[in-house]
């Protein structure tokens, strides 16, 4: 065991863990932060994605002992950080995922949303291709990719006050946009 000094979602924590434990294991099984998912546990799926100093990394392939002195952000920290910065409600990424129905089972969502948040922090106006590139390390086995990318696109459009692109099945309108409420019966 060694005592680790971690900074998780702005909280400075002391936690005892064996030297071979990954950051994911410490987050889930010592700190109770189960939003970061243990999927493949070997770097294929991206479900364990967290932000370390603002960059998306795989918590399953990061030793907790090497995360000392870094700012770690998990999905649990997105909304508090957004509110602390003066925002209302959830982080705009979470909010857009919610409105767009960008999830089925939800297992990939924490990782997806953190990859999207890291992208938007670096590049507030990414192209659809850049969005796909940034999310390329997050697998969704429900294959809900279309609405996931659309959620990030909507988030970008609303943050820059641009008209959001329409999904193919609703030409001319974006049924999820706050500015253009859905006129049809589509959820």
């Amino acid at each position, binding site marked *: 065991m060694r005592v680790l000094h971690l900074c998780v979602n702005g909280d400075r924590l002391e936690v005892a863990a064996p030297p071979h434990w*990954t950051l994911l294991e410490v987050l889930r099984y010592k700190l109770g932060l189960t939003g970061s998912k243990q999927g493949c546990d070997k770097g294929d799926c991206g479900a364990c994605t967290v932000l370390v100093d603002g960059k998306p990394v795989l918590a399953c392939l990061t030793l907790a002992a090497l995360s000392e002195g870094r700012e770690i952000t998990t999905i649990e920290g997105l909304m508090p950080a957004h509110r602390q910065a003066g925002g209302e409600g959830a982080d705009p990424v979470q909010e857009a995922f919610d409105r767009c129905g960008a999830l089925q089972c939800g297992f990939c969502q924490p990782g997806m949303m953190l990859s999207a948040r890291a992208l938007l922090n670096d590049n507030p106006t990414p192209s659809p291709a850049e969005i796909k590139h940034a999310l390329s390390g997050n697998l969704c086995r429900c294959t809900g990719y279309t609405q996931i990318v659309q959620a990030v696109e909507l988030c970008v459009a609303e943050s820059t006050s641009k008209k959001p692109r329409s999904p193919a099945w609703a030409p001319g309108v974006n049924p999820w946009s706050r500015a253009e409420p859905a006129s049809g019966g589509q959820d």
Partner: protein
Amino acid sequence: MKSFELVMPKTLDEAIAALPESGQPTERVRVLAGGQDLLGEMKESLVTPERVVNLKTVPGIEGHEPTAEGGLRIGALTRLIDLERDEGLQGSHPMLVEAAAAVATPQIRSMGTLGGNLCQRPRCFYYRNPHSPCLKKGGTECFSYGGLNKYNAILGGGPSYIVHPSDVAPALVSYDAVFTLLGPAGEREVPADSFFTLPSSGEVTRENVLAANEIVTAVTLPAGREAWKATYLKVRERDSFDFALSAVALALKMNGDLIEQARLTLGGVAPKPWRCTSTEELLVGRKIDEETCRLAGEDALRMAEPLEQNGYKVPMTQGLIRRALQALAS
């Protein structure tokens, strides 16, 4: 993952001192840089080190600086994402940037390092399966030869048929890079092309000449490569992220329309980055036209000996060579 002693050296000398001395068992110690390959190997119990030496606490082996000779020295602990996003490198050494960007996922490039990418172990199904006692793990047989070999070598295979998994390595071979290796006796410089070994010429359980008590500390690109045209092209089965089915690292020094010098290295098709020296000679003095593309593809794959399931790699690689030449012609 089995428990281990985690060593946090403050200097390179301390790191070297934590590695096994000559004659000691080498399997008990592993060097950790980004850890993106090593932790996967440890989780599968392919390696079970008693000691892990963390290089991230060692200062001075990240970033890049010009050398006195006009080249560029890049620290081995430089993260792949920092190569990918380096605007200076994008202009001066685009092939290295393209290769770094082709590695795995944004998450893995955020942690993965240049040196770690060069020293990563093979991805062969039989090697990665903890229950398969294959040749690479000290067993007696390469199961891919008569088994599942869709992703295995078509060039330089035997007695093991792995392919080298690195994207960055073929680009560095085509840039004539030199690797700096540090050991107890000091530094030695090894050209990229000589760093990687074939299973038939080196130890079959290793892919390079790095000794167990050595660390790759830097990669140096020679002067003048800014004036070459170069590109790295990669084909993957899954486009979002995957290892290469085939890859081409092509660098050309042009004189007007004519090729004055060429470097062609293939990835994903051989147990090491596969330098095509005869094709490089064939290209010299030629224009990039249809006949040149055809001849280069034929020559580079002349020695190919596909296994039962990977014959597709021959036309795929020839197509990639054609695309790389055409990309550099425009």
